[in-house]
């Protein structure tokens, strides 16, 4: 199988280039990451992040034949050759398939991604009904792989000002939590022409999320809450 992989080593390369690799393998049940590891065994200069190899840690997000995804849960058999691998778009490239995600993490931190509840702590758990808990499904499962935010044109243009789909999904995860008491503060934090409203519902985030989550819906709910608040 033929692979075309984006290569860039800032120490030696004036500019990036695509390198071809051929593997004599049968796609079978192999995942893309398996093939990348075989290539890495041949050519140890290729840099890529990877950890869990089962789609829960979010390390090996990359652009695969033009679409963001996780290499470890992308079946080789579903990919057209030559398989083109590029780093996540719109982020500074550190080397090869490794990008600098500082802006992404900074936006995540900016939404205060932790439960805020000023009540005295009970000696048992804070109670939550199964229905209230269900509100968190489709939100808490985010693995911070950055597939969504780095496929979003609004995030490409304004990564310093627009929170991006991943951060906004998490903002709503805490707004939606019946145990959280900071909804007003969280909405204030997002009421801004850029932080939230740069989302134009292009929905590439929904399309690429490897966990099947829907940031656009979460963003819509935040917008709705802001609208209700002003009425």
């Amino acid at each position, binding site marked *: 199988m033929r692979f075309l992989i984006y290569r860039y080593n800032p120490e030696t390369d004036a500019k990036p280039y695509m390198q071809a690799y051929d593997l004599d393998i049968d796609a079978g049940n192999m995942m893309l990451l398996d093939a990348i590891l075989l290539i890495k065994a041949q050519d140890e200069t290729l840099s890529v992040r990877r950890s869990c190899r089962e789609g829960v840690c979010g*390390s090996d997000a990359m652009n695969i034949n033009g679409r963001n995804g996780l290499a470890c849960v992308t079946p080789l058999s579903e990919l057209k050759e030559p398989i083109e691998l590029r780093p996540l778009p719109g982020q500074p490239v550190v080397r090869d398939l490794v990008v600098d995600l500082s802006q992404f993490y900074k936006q995540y931190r900016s939404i205060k991604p932790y439960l805020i509840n000023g009540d005295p702590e009970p000696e048992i*758990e804070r109670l939550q009904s199964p229905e209230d808990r269900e509100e968190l499904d489709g939100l808490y499962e985010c693995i911070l792989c950055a597939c969504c935010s780095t496929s979003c044109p609004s995030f490409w243009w304004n990564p310093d000002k627009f929170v991006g789909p991943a951060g906004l999904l998490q903002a709503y995860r805490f707004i939606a939590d019946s145990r959280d008491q900071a909804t007003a503060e969280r909405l204030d934090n997002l009421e801004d022409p850029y932080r939230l409203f740069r989302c134009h519902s292009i929905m590439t985030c929904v399309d690429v999320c490897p966990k099947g989550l829907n940031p656009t819906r979460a963003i819509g709910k935040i917008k709705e809450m802001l609208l209700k608040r002003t009425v």
Partner: protein
Amino acid sequence: MSIAKRTFDAVIIGGGGAGLRAALQLAHADLKVAVVSKVFPTRSHTVSAQGGIAASLGNVNEDNWHWHMYDTVKGSDYLGDQDAIEFMCRQANEAVIELEHFGMPFDRLPNGKIYQRPFGGMTQNYGGTPVMRTCAVADRTGHAMLHTLYQRNIAAKTHFFEEYFALDLVMDDHGYALGVVALGIESGEPVFIEARATLIATGGAGRIFNATTNALINTGDGLAMALRAGIPLEDMEFWQFHPTGIAGAGVLVTEGVRGEGGYLVNKNGERFMERYAPNAKDLASRDVVSRAMAVEIHEGRGCGRDSDYVELKLDHLGPEVIRQRLPGIRELSLKFAHIDPIEAPIPVVPTVHYMMGGIPTNLQGQVVMPTQTGPEEAVLGLYAIGECACVSVHGANRLGSNSLLDLIVFGRAAGNHVIEYLKENPFPRPVPDGALDRSMARLARWDDKRDGITVDELREQMSKTMQKHCGVFRTEEVLQEGVKKMLEIAARLPDVALRDHSRIYNTGRIEALELENLLGVALATMISAAARKESRGAHARDDYPQRDDSNWLKHSLYFSDGHRLDFKPVRLKPLSVDSFQPKARTY
């Protein structure tokens, strides 16, 4: 080479569940704490934990920590230290409630309390009926826990060295830990992180084996660092084979599947665990279930063309339960086995999953080792927590859902002890000349050597040898041959050379440094396993099929210097209750 220095009150190596829990305790005490992690913290292997975390909350059935303690002692095949087990089980409720208060999104019961499910070996009334003790977030409990702890650390303003690879502990001549030298993966530059307390929380090392549920990052870095500092590793012969790894892929399927009512069948469709464990059946402890599966496969009752796996049946649970309680498993099964468990059983094999042994510690997480003057003393300023530590609560076999508990109970306990220790040791100790030399020599070695075999080649030899010679069933001949081979493989390390000597984000160099660590841990495992001439928990020998309490009710200690073994007694005396005396173990 000059080396940058950063100074903190405490440094934690590893950003998984144990490391982040300890970091939180220290940050809440207004200490300057740094976490060094070779991956962004939420990429740590805790994220892969599925089924849940044990605590005798009794939200569904009557329960108490005495029963949990008994189950854990029995599960450990009596090798666990009963003071540590009492400590963990007593603290479990508080530790789990604390996670809920931190914001962890536990599943809920109709009354609003935390949802609990049955798990292997967890019973009521000292070995009676199965109890619902395992607190769960669907089948993504580790993910929810790790993200919650990371989020709390953001709030607490913990300092993170993200993507820094720890090279070696820095110690002085009096045996105090002074911090750690780490390599910035992106910059390729080393940094000395000085701290009055150093905590090792680097997790497991399943990658010494060829087939494992462990993440690719689980290379035993902290264990090898300890070995290089002259600290022994305890009970390294005990590696848990999880009964249900997806055949071929090695990806884990939680025991929670069997907790929710799933069961194993052989090629005849027989629910074979009824023969091996008439009471607990599929919810017997993991060593028992894995051995039963291996016997079924060995005797020709495996499924598939090559009769080399058994099947995990859960379609009878119905789509509702599978979608609500086991959605992650369904996703993994669809992706890695191309099977929808709502319709068909999942092919599974016992797969290396968890290391019961590790760096010996006391209940406060302090690293302990034998001294010339006494049986055991703390290494001052040095702590180990989580899977890399051996306190020992899991003994010869860990019960499912006790590992997440171990992380937070001992992460917190170590944090609390560090706070006191730092009060008594308010100033950094002088760093002796040459204390950083070992780290710099490690880096230089990989820079200097230009020709030789590849990292990948030697790593593969190691992992295949470990798989073949240190598997579910072990014999003297297989083990001794394994020791010989592993010594030969380790001796080839100086022949390995890098092709890539660049600085920036050189993952080839990181894998070479990891290989050094893996080899140290593999040798410790192989040599400890060859020495133990009995069957206990996960260590099963065909030639010594019985547990031998008169000779082997003791912990092993492996020192890398001369590959020497020592032993220490099991602490059978709990903190406040009567001992559970070793007896025959049936489920």
